[in-house]
């Protein structure tokens, strides 16, 4: 039976109905959008018996566990070789799973697995993601399991360990950790007649910048300094300047938002002036170390994890110098935030697997392995007893990065504990630096936004 096609044409009324259906679908998609705090909402207070976590008396470790990683610092090969050594030593097999390339990928995969089972036994937790897992009650406090696995946190760098503490519990163990580092082009500094070192304060650099700009005819640089790409870095690296001026995104160890306080506004005005008024600084679009390596800027701030790549990309064209992050008029140390990621253990997997995962954490970050991991990736050794002489012999610049670990400060809660706050900060800073928005007004708006996030997404989970 042939059917006349023209009669099947959709009438106007059914088309309207269709539009309604489509709108319904769109509304549906809006409801179930990427609200990262949704799935654990029913769990209520995440930390009722948090301090030590579940008891591991009489549990024997499992023989096979899985480890989800995004291979930070291109670490797949070195992680696999540590896994192979662990297998030889303990008999426990660790399956290294590629869970994406960014921390967001890992989060999405972890989120899906929360709903459908097949959880990993060990998962990468970045500085801005672990607190969300804590709020969703999807990771366990590590006190008891580390004790059962005989992992002692006292030999770890305390500043890095403290990054994963909340409510007297430890929620992750530092693994691939980095800090920002001041990078500069030694030949540019020489051409401008500057000393061969990083500036001690941002005030000092403000006096250096005009000299670097004056030397541009020989250096061919575009800017004396480049602010790191705003998305992903503004919230992180700007803490350095904020702290130097005595400000911050929020008060130390508190959710009290201070991004519009006097010192914070002063700090950000310095940043805004460097770009908009004095015009010696630019803003990187994706990666300021690319521009440094190309000689397009004379100095920048980026992660220590980029060090090896920068040196490789520069080759023999010029010497790369590195130094501590400059301080400000109020504080010169500690003004360096920490970053990178640690590893944590999900809730809802067998205790035997959790115990095996904890044993592997201890092995993964033991003094010997943290050094070989550092050598392969550029991340910093997380143990105080680690013998870093081989690292220093291979690459003297990494010594500066390691020494800077002694003057780090735990990040502002507003950045790392508020879901999505990092993006809001990046947006606000972008408005100031690239659209000429006023610092004061923008920061007041940011404060309202951040407080809104706290009230709606964080506070309900903390009572």
């Amino acid at each position, binding site marked *: 039976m042939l059917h006349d096609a023209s009669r*099947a044409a959709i009438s106007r009324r059914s088309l309207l109905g269709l539009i309604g259906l489509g709108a319904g679908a769109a509304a549906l998609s809006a409801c179930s959008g*990427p609200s990262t705090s949704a799935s654990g909402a029913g769990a209520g207070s995440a930390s009722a018996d948090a301090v030590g976590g579940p008891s591991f008396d009489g549990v024997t470790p499992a023989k096979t566990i899985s480890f989800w990683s995004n291979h*930070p*610092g291109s670490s797949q090969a070195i992680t696999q070789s540590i896994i192979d050594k662990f297998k030889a030593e303990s008999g426990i097999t660790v399956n290294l799973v590629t869970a994406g390339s960014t921390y967001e990928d890992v989060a999405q995969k972890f989120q899906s697995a929360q709903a459908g089972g097949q959880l990993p036994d060990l998962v990468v937790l970045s500085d801005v993601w672990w607190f969300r897992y804590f709020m969703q009650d999807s990771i366990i406090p590590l006190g008891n399991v580390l004790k059962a696995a005989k992992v002692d946190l006292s030999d770890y760098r305390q500043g890095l360990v403290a990054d994963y503490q909340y409510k007297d519990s430890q929620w992750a163990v530092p693994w691939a950790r*980095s800090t920002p580092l001041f990078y500069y082009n030694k030949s540019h500094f020489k051409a401008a007649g500057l000393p061969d070192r990083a500036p001690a304060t941002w005030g000092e650099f403000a006096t250096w910048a005009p000299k670097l700009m004056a030397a541009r005819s020989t250096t061919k640089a575009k800017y004396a300094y480049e602010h790191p790409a705003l998305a992903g870095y503004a919230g992180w690296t700007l803490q350095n300047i904020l702290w130097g001026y005595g400000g911050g995104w929020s008060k130390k160890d508190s959710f009290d938002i201070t991004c519009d306080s006097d010192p914070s506004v002063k700090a950000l005005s310095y940043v805004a002036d460097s770009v908009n008024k004095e015009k010696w600084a630019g803003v990187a679009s994706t990666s300021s170390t690319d521009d440094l*390596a190309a000689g397009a800027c004379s100095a920048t701030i980026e992660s220590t994890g980029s060090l*090896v790549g920068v040196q*490789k990309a520069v*080759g023999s064209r010029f010497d790369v110098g590195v130094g501590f992050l400059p301080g400000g008029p109020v504080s010169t140390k500690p003004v360096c935030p920490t970053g990178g990621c640690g590893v944590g253990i999900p809730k809802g997997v067998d205790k035997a697997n959790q115990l095996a995962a904890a044993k592997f954490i201890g092995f993964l970050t033991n003094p010997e392995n943290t050094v070989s991991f550092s050598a392969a990736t550029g991340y910093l050794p997380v143990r105080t007893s680690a013998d870093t002489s081989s690292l220093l012999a291979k690459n003297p610049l990494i010594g500066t990065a390691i020494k800077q670990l002694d003057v780090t400060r735990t990040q502002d809660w507003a950045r790392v504990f508020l879901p999505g706050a990092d993006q809001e900060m990046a947006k606000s800073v972008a408005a100031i630096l690239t659209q000429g928005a006023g610092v004061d007004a923008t920061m007041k708006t940011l404060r309202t936004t951040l407080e809104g996030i706290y009230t709606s997404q964080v506070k309900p989970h903390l009572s």
Partner: protein
Amino acid sequence: MSLALTRAGGPAIVGNAERRGGRKDHSGHEATVDESIVGPDPWTRRVFGGYLPLIIACLIIVLPLLWMVLGSFKTADEVITQDLVLWPHHPSFAAYANASAKVNFPQLFMNSVLVTAVGATVKVVLAITSAYAFAFLRFPGKRIIFLAILVALMVPSQVSLVPNYITIAGMGGVNTYWGIILPGLGTAFGTFLLRQNFMSLPIDVLEAAEMDGAGHLSRLFRMVVPMSTPAIATVALVTIVDEWNNYIWPLVITTDDSRMTLPVGLTLLKNIEGDPSAYPILMAGAVVVILPVLIVFLFLQRYIVAGLTQGAVK
């Protein structure tokens, strides 16, 4: 017209009045007969109206790809530089070697080919058969079902990610080929596009076939499919590219590189810590992923063009 006049010159000058008057002198105007019918075709219009936009459009598409291929043969300091390096000074396959040291390309390539071949074939067959049903068959609830398909077209795939995962994981499909392929098989886009195309086919041809005793299957495969080659080739191409490039679902459902597809594998080359030295390696990886799709496109575009120039009814 004025352009034509300046170009033609001599006996080829063809103003309207002159042409009417000069008809008798037939031989002298022979060369311009065509032009008087189709209108003048001055070189300026051919260049500015035809070739130039084409060339610009091609360059916009080709240059980034070309730059990627060139970049994959460069060293890091030739990519990250202020002095433009067009041609690699020491072209080498080092980046390709580096990339394949990090990623098990043969295995991932196999996985991608398998997933794409099976997934795209099933999708296209489903699209053709369902579109035929919507275009030519009469059955209850037809318009409601078609509307439901259109609604499915409007739901972003991210929305169904978690429900799909729960379903597939519950069926034991994590890290399996069928787990990667199954949820993507429903193809609202292909059904919709082919139905619209089938409805534009001349119904007389199919009625004639029916009178000659052709059943549904032979009408579909001997009449409808050959007449709709360009549309089907388009759907096939889009489907293949979609399947090949699909990232988030294979990422979520696979756990190791025994089942991982190429786009997921590429993430192994990317370093979340900005690494200026990694660009040649990233470009080499991208070349490996893009090449097969380009070859498929070159193959299929012949059908798209051939189909467009074929007459359906004579």
